[in-house]
């Protein structure tokens, strides 16, 4: 079988998962200056999966292309994706605009068409807006099948189908679909590799196409939702440490918790 799989992996630059976000002084959003940013963890898994698919099916995967829509600094995470094994990438500079998933999906649809991709692997959600929207929206716009929350992806080259084990509320379910399709990754799909220094050096030589949001001027990327305010959730009042199991049971009874 000829090389027929062209994988597109959208990646997002987000505040590092280990950092507790703080509201900015203006109270309009989250403080972003001086904060560590990284690749969205679910996207890291998506990149890893694309690279593993190629390692496993050398004669099937033609290309792995990464794309990011965000500030100019998003090129850092694209370099990371290249270092982990993506061949080429596209940076779509949106400056400081934070696009909603619908807008991102519309732009991604264009990228899918431009790259002639037939398998899009995205993270199931970004850990900043926690929407869990973009993959489903992209699939809808393309009229492609979708398999979200993937815990396992299997290619059946002979039938041109992809079988995905999905994490659902009560356990897991399996769906299969014909290419082209959209898959979103859950945490248990794989463990992403580290980008080694030599690979990071090599990644600098890999091609990065640079576009701006203006290149998608005919795509409606206007925000549909207005954020009226952001606030920190009510903090829990400090609890007490008890010295023994007896004391714990006593306190729980007093609090009518048991």
């Amino acid at each position: 079988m000829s090389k027929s799989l062209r994988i597109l992996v959208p990646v997002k630059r987000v505040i590092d998962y280990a950092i507790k976000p703080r509201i900015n002084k203006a109270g309009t959003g989250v403080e972003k200056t001086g904060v560590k940013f990284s690749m969205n963890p679910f996207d890291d898994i998506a990149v890893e999966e694309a690279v593993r698919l190629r390692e496993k099916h050398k004669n099937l995967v033609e290309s792995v292309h990464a794309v990011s829509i965000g500030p100019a600094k998003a090129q850092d995470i694209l370099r990371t994706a290249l270092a982990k094994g993506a061949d080429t990438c596209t940076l779509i500079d949106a400056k400081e605009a934070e696009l909603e998933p619908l807008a991102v999906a519309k732009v991604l649809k264009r990228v899918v068409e431009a790259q002639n991709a037939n398998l899009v692997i995205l993270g199931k959600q970004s850990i900043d807006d926690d929407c869990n929207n973009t993959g489903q929206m992209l699939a809808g716009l393309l009229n492609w099948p979708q398999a979200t929350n993937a815990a396992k992806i299997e290619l059946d080259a002979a039938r041109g189908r992809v079988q995905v084990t999905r994490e659902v509320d009560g356990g897991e379910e399996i769906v299969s679909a014909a290419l082209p399709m959209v898959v979103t990754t859950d945490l248990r799909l794989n463990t992403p590799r580290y980008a080694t220094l030599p690979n990071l050096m090599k990644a600098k030589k890999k091609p990065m196409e640079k576009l701006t949001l203006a290149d998608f001027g005919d795509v409606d990327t206007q925000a549909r939702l207005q954020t009226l305010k952001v606030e920190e959730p009510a903090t829990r009042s400090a609890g007490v440490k008890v010295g023994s199991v007896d004391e714990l049971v006593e306190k729980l009874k007093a609090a009518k918790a048991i």
Partner: protein
Amino acid sequence: MIFSRTSIRAFPRSSLPSLFRSRAASTLAFIETSQDGKIAQSSLSALSAAEKLGNPITALFVGGSAQKGAETLKGDYSVNSLKSIIVASNEAYNNYLPENVTSLCVKLLEDPEYSHFIVASSASGKNVLPRVGALLDLQPICDVTAIVDAKTFVRPMYAGNILATVECNQSKKLISVRASSFPAASAGGTEVPITKAAEQPKSSIDVKWEGENLVKSERPDLGSASRVVAGGRGLKNKETFDNLVTPLADTLHAAIGATRAAVDSGLCDNSLQIGQTGKVVAPDLYVAVGISGAIQHLAGMKDSKTIVAINSDPEAPIFQVADFGLVGDLNEVVPELTEKLAK
């Protein structure tokens, strides 16, 4: 639009031209059922959230168990503003395959009567709603934890560390609601008509549901349990997890939950994971056993009423949110607690 908003309001409702009367706000609620027609807890919460929108509600049931589900809702639950139930029993909607379910939802939502579409933030709700949004060119508001008014919603971001109040001025509001933030619809009965949805042409998308592997359990459902006992990496192995967590949960009639670390180490099934990327729970009592309290885990449980932490590490961040903390060796403390609670 010929009338400005204020001039519409100036008309008594009955004298409005029919064009406007047909635009009276109404909510379509997507209800999930199990194969035997039992309504999902998360959908019962979605129904009570729908009531908060203040519009008449139409409940939508799809798939092979739709008719049974519709009868269950009608017979067993009381939803004041429920005005009708739509049933789409087509087998194409089984297992809530989004490729098929979406086209039905889109077709129904094209009716200008519907101003709101509400789903539970369940695995199926999250799978279907954004696809519907894309096809209707609407950005949904996801995982809503509070409804301020019919166009203003509160939703958590950044693993629950930030609460954003968002206003939506789109023609229709598509929302998914976090089950733990809304009470379940109350028991009772509601006399409403059940109608059949018009058949939709079958989707041309080649997608097939191949099977499932669900965890069978007699325990209360994790998402709606009033008590949860959760285990973390501190339990070290599956044997300890089963020996310590299970009896304590049995004694408390609690659901069992876990951290990502526990799931990844194979201590339990991943459908038990609580946190930003797993389930979000808000029980009356949450007992965290051997859980350090990473922010991704706290995102899933910090709205619990009473939190108990049992951990050998006195510096574990879980103690900062726990109402009652006990520092000690799990292997000694947990069996002792189980025994004393059983009395």
